[in-house]
């Protein structure tokens, strides 16, 4: 029996780039300019990072009262500890706080579930509608033995999440109609859609919020009033519909003409063609940019504080006005900054992952 020669596994060349030192040389010190840059950055980090770590961790006060905080040099996380429930849930009645807590939990579960592509089934949309309705009932109360809580008392994270998701869910069908309208062959339909989209995209969100808060009451029949939260929500829906419409239009434009022509050849009507052939393809193409639009909407909810709603940013800002706990703005802003960041960063990553994944699995049209 002859032994068959076995190929040796290829070994990496031991050149100047090998090992940790080689990596350093290749990535940080490969030229005079880069060496200088590296040294400058390291020096900057050495100046900034240690005090930051000392402030945030080593010298920080985890619990105690304001006096203990003032005695220390570091961050006063005791302030967050003290104000946590107010920052997260606003002025919601104290004995009922499990309700907004549960709402936030349901939101997180629903959002997480929706991120799993295996669960993108037909029941997901009704599940969201039921979920949002259920959360609304849970917040408002007045049924099932839950004490009623006026929506002027709602605040914090549930409000922020609610404004963003309800805005997205309601604006979505409107934006599909707008996107179809903008590509319609009927000149009047197209004109109105273009006017709507461009007008809203051309003005700041604040002006829409002002419109909803000070102008809308003037346009309703005398005696009819809509509360502040609903008006802000309406402004938000208008805003979202224009931006979503442009995203969806991008998807519609990417569908090859042959798809529509094939549908025409089969004798499908306009709506049959759109609902059965074009929209399913177009919408699945634009899921990543839709997630990005949702991130934008989520961040933009912070603007509602301008018209006096207690969203997450406003509750944090209000917690600063407690005379006993004055001056801990860094802690408050860092804390809610982390909340906003975690949501947005997660969804941004998810969107990028989705984009790579969908491209991978999509068959050429």
């Amino acid at each position, binding site marked *: 029996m002859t032994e068959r020669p076995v190929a040796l596994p290829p070994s990496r060349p031991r050149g100047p780039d090998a090992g940790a030192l080689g990596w350093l040389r290749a990535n940080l010190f*490969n030229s005079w300019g*880069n060496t200088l840059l590296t040294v400058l950055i*390291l020096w900057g980090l050495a100046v900034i990072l240690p005090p930051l770590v000392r402030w945030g961790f080593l010298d920080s006060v985890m619990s105690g009262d304001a006096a203990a905080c003032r005695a220390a040099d570091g961050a006063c996380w005791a302030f967050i500890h003290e104000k946590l429930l107010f920052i997260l849930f606003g002025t919601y009645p104290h004995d009922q706080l499990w309700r907004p807590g549960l709402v936030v939990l349901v939101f997180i579960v629903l959002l997480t579930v929706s991120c799993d592509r295996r669960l993108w089934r037909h029941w997901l949309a009704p599940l969201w509608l039921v979920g949002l309705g259920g959360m609304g009932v849970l917040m408002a109360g007045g049924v099932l033995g839950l004490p009623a809580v006026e929506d002027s008392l709602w605040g914090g994270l549930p409000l922020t999440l609610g404004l963003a998701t309800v805005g997205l869910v309601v604006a979505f069908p409107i934006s599909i109609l707008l996107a179809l309208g903008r590509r319609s062959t009927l000149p009047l339909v197209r004109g109105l859609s273009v006017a709507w989209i461009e007008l809203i995209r*051309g003005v*700041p969100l604040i002006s829409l919020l002002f419109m909803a808060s*000070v102008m809308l009451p*003037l346009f309703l*029949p005398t005696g009819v009033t809509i509360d502040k939260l609903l008006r802000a929500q309406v402004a938000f829906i208008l805003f979202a519909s224009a931006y979503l419409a442009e995203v969806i239009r991008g998807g519609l434009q990417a569908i090859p003409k042959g798809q529509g022509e094939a549908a025409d050849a089969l004798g499908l009507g306009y709506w049959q063609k759109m609902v059965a052939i074009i929209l399913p393809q177009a919408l699945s193409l634009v899921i990543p940019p839709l997630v990005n639009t949702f991130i934008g909407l989520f*961040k933009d909810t*912070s603007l509602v504080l301008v018209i006096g709603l207690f969203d997450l940013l406003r509750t944090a800002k209000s917690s600063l006005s407690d005379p006993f706990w004055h001056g801990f703005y860094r802690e408050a802003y860092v804390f809610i900054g982390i909340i906003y960041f975690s949501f947005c960063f997660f969804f941004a990553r998810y969107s990028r992952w989705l984009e790579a994944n969908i491209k991978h699995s999509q068959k050429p049209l």
Partner: protein
Amino acid sequence: MAIQVLLVGAVIGLVGWLAANALDNLARGSIATGFGFLSRPSNFEVGECLIPCSAADSYGRAFLVGLLNTLKVGGIGLVLTTLLGTLIGIGLLSSNWLAARLARVYVELVRNVPLLLQLFLWYAVITEALPGPRQALSPLPNVFLSNRGLMVPMLAASPAWLSVGIAVIAVVVILLIIGRWRRRPLPPLMAGSLLVGAALLAWLAWGAPTALDVPHLAGFNFRGGMAFSPEFLALLLGLVMYTAAFIAEIVRSGILAVDPGQTEAARALGLSPGLILRLVILPQALRLIVPPLTSQHLNLLKNSSLAVAIGYPDVVSVLDTTINQTGQAIEGVAMIMGVFLVINLTLSALMNWYNARIQLR
């Protein structure tokens, strides 16, 4: 056709119903209509004025002051954010691992936190963490940074500066006319020296004034020089840093989209890295960068309306006060929207013109 008629009918019906309601409400609340309020005295102080202003001025002048404030923060912001964004965008692609990481951390951190939160943080840092005017930081001679804002020296008022401005504008107009007439612009060196020469002449004609208006402590605050308020600084800083994170990504993807073969060919020709960037990559990348960059510029201008939340008297916050005082919400909101639509259309037109020039022909 039937659909269109129905749709238009519905829209007209809706608008008519809203208008009828509005007229009814206005009559009941005895709220005035029309823009007559613009000439009435406003009775409120606008915190910062680029043109002389006081509480006795009309609403119209207050509006103008607010508009100038918006343009001030927008104009400075656009330039700074483009520079910073380009720098960070190049940093994202740096061959230096540390620089690329740092740029990435900046972009992710800034992009994923609401702008309004960043504005509040900057405002709080400026007004609460900086020392008072008496202990003001002075990073450069005669430049003072305190919780009252940033004070820098300015050229002392003199008629010379006005005539320099007029001379520069006149030369630019002449250059444009000559360019149109010759069907191509003058060589940059010649045009530049003409501009500088005219400005120098105008300056010399007034006796070459060099006096500086230097900020100095007077009582509890600084007098003289040019002052940037904490509100302005917070808004500018927030807008510039936030928008730069988005611009950085645009610049990065624009540069990445240039075929690597171009760089290799340039390197084979013996061009230095700096020249490759300037002569080969940037001219090609710009074509891809300019359209999305325009929309980021528009975003910055629209986001400058957040000024109202930190008390910088931009056009939105002046009109907000006007609405509260006069009750004329429809006119006020219409003016806000009108201002931003006009600004948007103007900037889009300018950028489209620039975009058309740099595209391949």
